[in-house]
């Protein structure tokens, strides 16, 4: 009797493990909650506010996906992950979706068996130094001690950059952004390197932002985007098109405030398709027809999310730059909703 119970348990475990690898949409619907892998705390991109509610640029995308799938942007559980644990958390099924300043690279796409379904922020790696160090270019950093987060692409870019410019450095590897800031502020390293957006966010939280400068060199391409597991194409499509819907909404001037008005008055066929007023586009991917409308209502369009979390009016003060829409000279370009 005991033995059969044991084998039953073993068999059940095997089946659960087997089942967890496909059908993320059904899992999320059955659970009634989206589990989103987020940063351990990066101001503007993803961290809990004073009330413990997660806010930020990456967080807003998670909420939009939750709104599209479950109809409620608050039904998200955020799991903080470090640079080292994030992909393991995704691959093991601990999180459904990873939106955590993760760079899309060839080996992550192929060797780690992950799918980067969109690019929500075009970034590049930069260096931050204290003003009194008297450095104005990254090429003057010969012999410097550099704080670097371990398990990131920046670690490899850094080695490449110094090697290419034939200068040397001493690395100080740290686990996360807060530890890096502590070491940098304490003077344990001369410069802190990470994505330029991350540097801007870090500087915004410092007591004396005016005493720190971000050097002009951007030494790498860092397309940051949401990641899903390889092999679950339906789930990947949902995330990709939720993001596209946010971009199209900005392009078409649909905002959180005017979406109801637009929905009732518009004659633009693309908007009507996207907001579920025409055709069965939501149902094509297993969602409600009003899914993308809900996604836009969650936090507004892409531009609104950008400005509210990291834009020029916030302490982080990032300009749109490469992340402007293609119509305004940027790279953000959504495929047509047809």
């Amino acid at each position, binding site marked *: 009797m005991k033995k059969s119970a044991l084998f039953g348990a073993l068999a059940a475990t095997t089946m659960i493990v087997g089942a967890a690898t496909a059908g993320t949409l059904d899992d999320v619907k059955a659970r009634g909650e989206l589990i989103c892998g987020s940063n351990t705390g990066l101001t503007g991109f993803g961290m809990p506010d004073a009330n413990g509610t997660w806010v930020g640029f990456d967080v807003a995308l998670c909420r939009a996906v939750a709104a599209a799938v479950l109809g409620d942007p608050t039904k998200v559980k955020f799991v903080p992950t470090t640079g080292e644990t994030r992909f393991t958390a995704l691959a093991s099924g601990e999180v459904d979706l990873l939106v955590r300043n993760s760079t899309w690279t060839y080996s992550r796409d192929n060797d780690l068996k992950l799918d980067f379904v969109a690019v929500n922020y075009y970034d590049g790696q930069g260096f931050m130094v204290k003003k009194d160090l008297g450095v104005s270019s990254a090429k003057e950093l010969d*012999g410097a001690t550099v704080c670097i987060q*371990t398990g990131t692409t920046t670690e490899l870019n850094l080695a490449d950059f110094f090697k290419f410019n034939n200068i040397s450095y001493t690395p100080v590897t740290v686990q996360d952004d807060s530890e890096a800031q502590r070491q940098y502020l304490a003077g344990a390293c001369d410069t802190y390197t990470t994505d330029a957006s991350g540097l801007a966010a870090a500087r915004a939280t410092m007591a004396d932002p005016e005493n720190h400068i971000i050097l002009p060199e951007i030494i790498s391409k860092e397309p940051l985007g949401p990641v899903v597991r*390889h092999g679950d194409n339906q789930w990947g499509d949902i995330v990709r098109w939720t993001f596209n819907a946010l971009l199209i909404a900005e392009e078409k001037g649909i905002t959180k405030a005017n979406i109801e008005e637009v929905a009732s008055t518009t004659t633009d066929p693309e908007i009507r398709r996207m907001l579920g007023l025409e055709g069965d586009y939501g149902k094509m991917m297993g969602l409600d027809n009003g899914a993308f409308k809900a996604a836009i209502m969650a936090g507004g369009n892409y531009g609104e999310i950008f400005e509210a979390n990291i834009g020029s009016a916030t302490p982080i003060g990032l300009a749109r730059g490469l992340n402007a829409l293609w119509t305004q000279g940027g790279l953000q370009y959504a495929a047509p909703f047809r």
Partner: protein
Amino acid sequence: MALATDVPKESFRLSMLIYDTRFRSITIQVVVLLLFLLLVGWLVDNTVQNLAAKDKDISFGFLWQRAGYDIEQQLIPYTNDSTHGRATIIGLLNTLAVAALGCVFATVIGVFAGVLRLSNNWIVGRLMTVYVEIFRNVPLLLWIILIFVVTSETQPAPSDFKVTAAMIEARAALAGAGTVAESAGLLDRITGIYVFSMPFFLWLVIGIGLVVASWQFAATRLAASGTTRALIPAAAAVVWIGLALTLFNDGLTRATETLAAQGTVQTEPANQKMLFDSTALTNRGAYVPAPILDRPLGGTEIATIPVNYSVLATLAVIALSVFANLALLRRARAIQEETGNRPTTWWQSLAILFLPTIALLWAMGFHLDIPAFATDEAGVSKGFNFQGGILVQHSFTALVVALSLYTGAFIAEIVRSGIMAISRGQSEAAFALGLRPGRTMNLIILPQALRVIIPPLISQYLNLTKNTSLGIAVSYLDLKGTLGGISLNQTGRELECMLLMMLIYLIISLLISSVMNVFNAAVKLKER
């Protein structure tokens, strides 16, 4: 009726496997083995299936790929062009360096603390109790982080050691004015002492400790009158105050003196190197002098691991010296046993032990490379860090210190238990022969206690070695940091990295315990 021959020949029945005691034990073992094999099979099958579901294979090919990242502390050459396999070896050597140093220090600390805890001196005994209890009962991770934070946050940044252009100008101005610092008089030395400072506090605490300890020594060891007893602590106090007015005076008065003398212009950097201007303690680590040879003997590479002939030659000479010294002592003992007079050997020992090594080092052109900032013609420091010397990372120091103190506390208890296991009659017999307490401990008690001490000591060494993986908390790139950290992350080969890492730790642990078992076999009670 002859029924006696009618004993039924019992045939084997299946139920006998359970009810017959001859077979039952075997049955149970077979069932347990089958269950165990099923469990293993299920685990392997589950792993293979899950890997297949994720479209992953098991391959150690990444060990030969370019690593692409840098490591701060490298005992053998490594660049970011080296392979992941090489990075693994670097990590392994870093692990072994911490483990080896930690084991040595922990043993020394543990033996001292263990012996002193049994001391008749009340203060020393209680102090050791406090040490053992504090370190044994607080998690090791907290000690590592505490020591790391204290060492890195309290030290100045390297830039505080730099000579700036403004300082050079100020020096020139002062030289022009012909200012010469006068040596301070006794009154200045007394009034200059800054009472509300950490150095003075330390001085005071150590001074009080000295006086109390010498008073106790006088009270317990000297059968003298009250005046003599009071004289010894008084002498200690006088010497200590004298030191404050001479040798320590600079340290105790600096805070006020520098402010008064320098005013607004600074002629010297905020911090100076210590130990004859050779070592700099910074918040990035300790820059210590590096040994450099002008005429090295060269070297070769065996399986990409460099072998340095100069180091080998030095080690060989040291080994030969020790060996020769042993021969000398043996001869002295033979003469002593024959004639009763022991020849004087101390100067011969010193000569044999040190002269050949010194001669070899001199021949190879040994000197120290002292860390210093690069300077331009005017003497203004350039660059971000000290050049030359060796940088001992704070993460390394914190790990070695915390592991030694923590494991030392356990070893102290083991040593204490070993000593207490020796019957009191042994030390009484030694005292009866006229041996002093120190010699009794070294010659009679400790050698016997070793037999009790060594088996639990093995497990402490194993603990210490495995605990080095906690270095991840202070970003020390040991085996866990390289193979199990960055390599794992950059290649995404979790299973392979974890298996390899477990295998390496297993091999290290088995090696340590087999070496210690050989040692144990050598010292244990010989039963003939």
